[in-house]
């Protein structure tokens, strides 16, 4: 296992800091938009939390950040000026297993992105609720906003385990898609699933239809695609050159 962790380290060096920077950058932009909308609100009719989130288009920033993180996660596969695959394939580690572990590492980085956006939004919510007119907010305001705002619900599904499963399987499938992209590029092949998956994840994350069936269906589809990636990464291919 130590050899695998060591083999993952060059990819980690390339992606971890970039993911953290994108996550923090997205959080800062969301905060700026949140305060911009808040500052323009008329005092006559105080805003509610979910309206601020919607009008600030915070979900769009999240989606853009998610696409950027996916872009950062495929950097180990770009081989700019060097064919790192020649080195990776000369190590004593199994390349298929290595790519699967890289997929898991990517999924963890996507979870970090999700966590940082969640923390940022909770801090913004906390600020808003503590400064708002006490007559317009209650200790239930955040809880209610989590069910009224599709974006906030996606970030913090609370007891909605179907959305939680969708998000977790979404991180796993995107992480594996990024790793499969790198793996196939090293072998001179193309992997076209990453872009559509990333777009679906970015667009679909803040969509909440209030129906667990949709979330569970998404989870099952994501897990089936994960299975496909597992097979494609560990299988033998004829088109090695």
């Amino acid at each position: 296992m130590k050899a695998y962790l060591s083999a993952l380290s060059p990819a980690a060096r390339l992606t971890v800091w970039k993911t953290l920077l994108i996550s923090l950058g997205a959080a800062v932009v969301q905060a700026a938009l949140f305060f911009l909308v808040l500052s323009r609100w008329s005092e006559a009719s105080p805003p509610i939390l979910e309206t601020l989130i919607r009008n600030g288009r915070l979900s769009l920033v999240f989606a853009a950040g998610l696409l950027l993180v996916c872009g950062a996660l495929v950097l180990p596969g770009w081989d700019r000026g060097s064919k790192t695959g020649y080195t990776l394939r000369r190590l004593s580690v199994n390349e298929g297993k290595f790519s699967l572990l890289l997929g898991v590492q990517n999924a963890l980085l996507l979870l970090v992105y999700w966590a940082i956006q969640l923390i940022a939004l909770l801090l913004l919510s906390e600020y808003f609720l503590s400064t708002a007119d006490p007559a317009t907010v209650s200790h239930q305001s955040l809880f209610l906003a989590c069910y009224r705002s599709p974006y906030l619900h996606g970030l913090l599904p609370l007891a909605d385990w179907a959305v939680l499963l969708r998000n977790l399987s979404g991180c796993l499938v995107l992480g594996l898609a990024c790793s499969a992209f790198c793996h196939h590029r090293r072998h001179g092949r193309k992997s076209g699933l990453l872009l559509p998956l990333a777009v679906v994840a970015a667009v679909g994350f803040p969509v909440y239809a209030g129906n667990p069936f949709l979330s569970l269906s998404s989870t099952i589809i994501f897990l089936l695609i994960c299975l496909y990636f597992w097979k494609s990464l560990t299988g033998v291919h004829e088109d090695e050159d």
Partner: protein
Amino acid sequence: MLVLSDVKKTYRQGTQALAGVNLSLGPGEIVGLFGENGAGKTTLMKCILGLLRYEGEITLDGAPITPKNIARLSFATCEHSFFPALTAAGHRDFYREHFPTFRNKRFAALMDFFQLPLNKTIRSFSAGQKNQFEVILALSQGADYILMDEPFAGNDIFNREDFYKVLLGILEPNETILLSTHLLEEVQHFIGRAVLLHQGVVAGDMTTSQLEDEGRSLMDYVKEIYHYQSDRVSRALDQLTDQKE
């Protein structure tokens, strides 16, 4: 002993790069691999390393090359195989973890010889420095068979000549070098054997001592094998001059 038996490689588009190569490389040999562009030199090296699928058999001391014994082979390629975002020190640590026979002393000495910085990312190196670093890694891995594919493309002649001298001084008796290059005259005093590839097969294979005994230079031998037509330039010039008229 690295043995290639009837190794064939046809690319998907139908190009036959290797048409049945038979070759044996013993411990301690320094072998020059020559051939015109497209002769199959790079393909041969990639087949040995398992980077390409092939027909035929390649064995290392009788065993097929697998992840178990692949560490006995190292590769320096002009395409480069380092991690651009890692520093030289990062590569040293990475190689130490994966290749237990990594030669720390040789790595340090060669870094010093080429005056390469330890703590800069390889991405920031010049083209020549990148080639030098690629070679340093291949030589420091601790491999028994060191494959080099045009390792000094883009380096100046002083660096290349000095390097060959240093290399001869540091190589241990069991280390084998397979060096693919077009720079025949530069390496003729460095190699002990010349293997000539032509249209995917070994067209010539001779030790430099055999050549010396026969009073032939490496260049003469290569020209003879490739049926070099010494009057081709004058004929071409004549034709071109006729066309102008």
